[in-house]
């Protein structure tokens, strides 16, 4: 039915099956959209946020998708600037994932703010001292860059590409992509960092506050670094999931292992820095404000040392090692375990740096505050996931996302059903 749109030579499932899949995910999407409109029309009383939890599930989701979306800028940086050519096999997909993540992040922000129609005040009345201003500027600019990076891939659709103008446009854009990749990397460095800065500059919150370099707290650098380190894990994870769903191999092992290896080294170096930061904070920064480490991990029903150990050791040190050791990296099972742990690790880090900060009491007579999100918050948080699945489904079906697809599936195609 839609054969004319499907990339040449590629096998795709029958249109009705595709449609059914889209309808199922679309229903989830609509649920999210309904919740989103509830929040816009009735206000944020639809959430379980409160004056202790001004930042909650959404801001975590926001930070998490931006972190895992970091695969796009980092892969782009490697491919276009450091000329790691092997990554051409995954760069399209990395960009699409990045696009999804960043568009989701912007959407979440538009729901999260109490006065969405005044959202632009952040640009118009910008306060240069605020990390959030930096985030807003870099995030919007980088989203524009990602859009530009995504466009050539869209223009490669079989029908669109027939239009000579678009054909040439796509070609020329590929040519200058290095410029955008560099811009993207630069912007990403800042907004990933300033997202880390959001927490680190809060000198009223000893759990969050970090010393740093000039105006940037250590969390600034740790966030950029962790996004670069764990972003590729997410790219690989989504690739793996897509491969499982489509039943096809889409990216060659060489590419996968290369990206995994780079990620492994990034994770390992990051986690060393993170451990140093944690120790310095636990033994110098927090005590200087009168807090013992145990204050942050006791006297409440949820946050214990387990969360610190899980984040740093189980989901930091372990995946780092698994990915730098050749044998575990090249074993698909241990590699997959590592990338899953890595994605969990970075999400947990963002959780801690948003929600645990809000939970910890600061005044000696205050108490821990725990919170459970409302369904509206959950639905609007799942909304981007559904949207991402749909966008990936369309991109995979109609765009030549994976350059290696045909070559990797030649033999299999003859026998197997397509996915």
């Amino acid at each position, binding site marked *: 039915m839609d054969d004319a749109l499907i990339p040449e030579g590629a096998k795709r499932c029958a249109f009705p099956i595709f449609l059914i899949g889209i309808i199922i995910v679309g229903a989830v999407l609509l649920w999210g959209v309904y919740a989103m409109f509830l929040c816009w029309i009735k206000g944020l009383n639809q959430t379980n946020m409160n004056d202790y939890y*001004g*930042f909650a599930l959404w801001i975590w989701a926001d930070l998490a998708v931006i972190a895992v979306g970091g695969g796009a800028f980092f892969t782009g940086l490697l491919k276009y600037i450091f000329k790691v050519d092997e990554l051409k096999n995954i760069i399209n997909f990395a960009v699409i994932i990045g696009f999804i993540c960043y568009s989701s992040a912007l959407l979440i922000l538009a729901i999260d703010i109490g006065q969405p129609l005044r959202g632009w005040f952040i640009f118009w009345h910008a306060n240069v001292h605020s990390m959030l201003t930096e985030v807003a500027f870099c995030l919007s600019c980088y989203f524009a860059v990602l859009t530009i990076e995504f466009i050539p891939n869209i223009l490669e659709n079989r029908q669109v590409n027939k239009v000579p103008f678009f054909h040439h446009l796509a070609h020329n854009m590929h040519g200058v992509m290095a410029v955008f990749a560099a811009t993207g990397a630069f912007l990403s460095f800042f907004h990933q960092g300033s997202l880390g800065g959001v927490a680190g500059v*809060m000198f009223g919150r000893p759990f969050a506050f970090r010393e740093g370099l000039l105006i940037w707290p250590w969390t600034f650098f740790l966030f950029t670094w962790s996004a670069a380190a764990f972003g590729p894990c997410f790219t690989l994870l989504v690739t793996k999931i897509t491969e499982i769903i489509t039943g096809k191999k889409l990216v060659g092992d060489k590419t996968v292992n290369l990206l995994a290896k780079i990620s492994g080294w990034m994770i390992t170096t990051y986690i060393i820095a993170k451990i140093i930061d944690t120790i310095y904070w636990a033994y110098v920064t927090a005590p200087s404000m009168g807090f013992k480490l145990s204050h942050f991990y006791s006297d409440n029903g949820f946050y214990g040392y387990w969360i610190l150990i899980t984040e740093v050791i189980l989901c930091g040190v372990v995946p780092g090692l698994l990915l730098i050791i050749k044998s575990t990296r090249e074993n698909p099972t241990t590699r997959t375990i590592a990338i899953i742990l890595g994605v969990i690790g970075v999400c947990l880090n963002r959780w801690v740096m948003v929600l645990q900060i809000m939970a910890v009491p600061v005044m000696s007579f205050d108490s821990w505050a725990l919170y459970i999100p409302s369904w509206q918050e959950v639905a609007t948080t799942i909304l981007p996931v559904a949207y991402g699945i749909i966008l990936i489904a369309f991109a995979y079906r109609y765009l030549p996302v994976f350059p290696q697809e045909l070559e990797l599936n030649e033999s299999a195609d003859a026998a197997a059903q397509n996915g």
Partner: protein
Amino acid sequence: MIENKKAHKFGMVIDLDKCTGCGACMVSCMSENNVPFKEDESNKKDSITWMRVYKLTNGKSFPETEIAYLPRPCQHCGGIGDHGHSPCVSVCPATATDYGYDTGIVSQIYTRCFGCRYCMGACPYHARYFNWWDPKWPEGMENYLSPNVSPRMRGVVEKCSFCYHRYQLARERAMVEGREIEEMEYQTACTTACPAGAIVFGDLNNPAHKVHQIVKPDPHPDPMNHKVVGKSRNPNVFRLLERLGTNPKVYYMSEREWVRKAGDNYLKGEWENVKTHHGASSSHG
């Protein structure tokens, strides 16, 4: 810090040994500032109270138990080194909350705030409140709203303003008459209401003002913590979370040691060392 001789630095000192926890300050504030109310206000995490009175206990069993009430308006923090970068002001991306260098008052511009709530996260005193709901008054009750403080719309943050409109009225009057405003001319609604006379408000920069005389603020940075400026030289006076370097302009006073200790966080053994240290009285006395 701004060494402008003309600049005011409004602040208060609250005598916790006098405070009875009656709540008159809270209600006076709500009534003065058009603070709305909902049917159920028992969840204190979404209940807008610019002034909130906390109840502290010494944690001992009856009959050794002691309590203290601690009224908490916005602390009008001067930020690290008292340079005006309050925890909240420095993070607001839209400059919707600002530091008044001429008054020391941290303002809140409701019509500019777009409700990102970053400032709330940054404030360790929970002095900021978000309008989760549209403010609503029972039929007819809007009639008592004061035009001097605009009612806030849903989706923005609000907090204690040190009754800034009272300052404006006093300043206008003084300006017309070509003089400085007087101590008693600008008093906040919580101060005047307090039946116990527990709150003293005035200009911390003005040695003639009672608040200055009680607090005796040390204008120099604390030699033990350079982030801290304006430490009191009165041994019974302290600030909340002073060690963080937020430099509040709200001071507290108590003769009870456990109450003073509850004002901040201390590691084991630290309190014994710091409790006697009060803004280098000998060198600057």
